[in-house]
């Protein structure tokens, strides 16, 4: 594995036939491989998320990250787009599933694809990962500190999202969950509750909570970055994908 890759902006037909922007990264090695949809965090389709997308390609996976705020803020800077999307109530669940489905189709149609596709998401993208994995036929899902899979947002939140743990029986693939023990969204109690729900539903899952880490411990450009948790988290991601995305 050389880490050689190509990455570029592309456009897809997302939910409702809308044209959405996406960042596609692919290994130059032409061997058949699995693929990942990367769902960005609430701060948007930013450089940090594109870096993560490239990291999957460097590791040998096809990867694509849709700009979930394309509709609200075409061409805007990521922080302006995130502010606009926040004020409008966030990304509707139905639209998210449609956009991820478009990404999955795109990946499966690529010549290098072995047909196996996973999804990973951070922050609000963690919840959206769970939603996608309960709505689409996938082979792996990685939820990085997603809030409100269980529990509801504060009354003052403009986000039009609610708990989705009742979808657990529909989970289509194994789920890896990576959480910070100091996080409040999701709290350790909420992580435990989701763990119990998945166990009761008989769904394969593997959860890890890191002491000394809170929300967004993977974000290398933020004070929340926790290198030890992030390093271990990445190793667990690679092992999980090797087990679930290999042909």
């Amino acid at each position, binding site marked *: 594995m050389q880490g050689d890759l190509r990455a570029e902006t592309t456009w897809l037909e997302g939910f409702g036939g809308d044209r959405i922007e996406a960042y596609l990264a692919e290994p130059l090695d032409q061997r058949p491989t699995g693929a990942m949809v990367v769902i960005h965090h609430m701060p948007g389709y930013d450089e940090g998320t594109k870096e993560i997308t490239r990291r999957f390609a460097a590791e040998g996976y096809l990867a694509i990250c849709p700009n979930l705020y394309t509709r609200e803020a075409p061409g805007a800077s990521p922080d302006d787009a995130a502010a606009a999307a926040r004020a409008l109530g966030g990304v509707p669940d139905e639209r998210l599933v449609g956009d991820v489905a478009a990404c999955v189709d795109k990946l499966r149609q690529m010549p290098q694809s072995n047909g196996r596709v996973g999804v990973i998401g951070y922050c609000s993208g963690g919840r959206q990962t769970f939603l996608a994995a309960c709505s689409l036929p996938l082979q792996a899902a990685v939820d990085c500190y997603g809030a409100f899979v269980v529990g509801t947002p504060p009354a003052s939140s*403009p986000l039009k999202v609610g708990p989705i743990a009742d979808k657990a029986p529909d989970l289509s693939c194994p789920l890896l969950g990576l959480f910070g023990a100091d996080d409040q969204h999701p709290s350790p109690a909420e992580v435990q509750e989701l763990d119990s729900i998945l166990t009761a539903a008989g769904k394969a899952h593997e959860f890890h909570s890191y002491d000394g880490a809170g929300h967004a411990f993977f974000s290398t450009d933020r004070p929340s970055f926790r290198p030890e948790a992030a390093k271990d988290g990445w190793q667990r991601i690679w092992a999980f994908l090797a087990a679930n995305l290999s042909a």
Partner: protein
Amino acid sequence: MCTYQTERVTIQGSGKGTKGWFPVTDATVYFDHPVDAPMEHSLNIDFLNPSLGPSARVAVELDRESAAALSRAIGEMLASTSD
């Protein structure tokens, strides 16, 4: 950005963005992860005009003490002056 709590206010005035002055119609106030300020959480204020698009935005990210001091200063100024 993950405390998810947000206060929204309808406002009237002007703000100066990257392309100059524009009328502001909305403000959002939230305590969450900052985009740029070097701290875990910040009090964030966006002055917006959605009708002009997402880039019609003036944003600030303040630590809790700064935000409280600013709030006090605004209150004191309004209390001691009149139109």
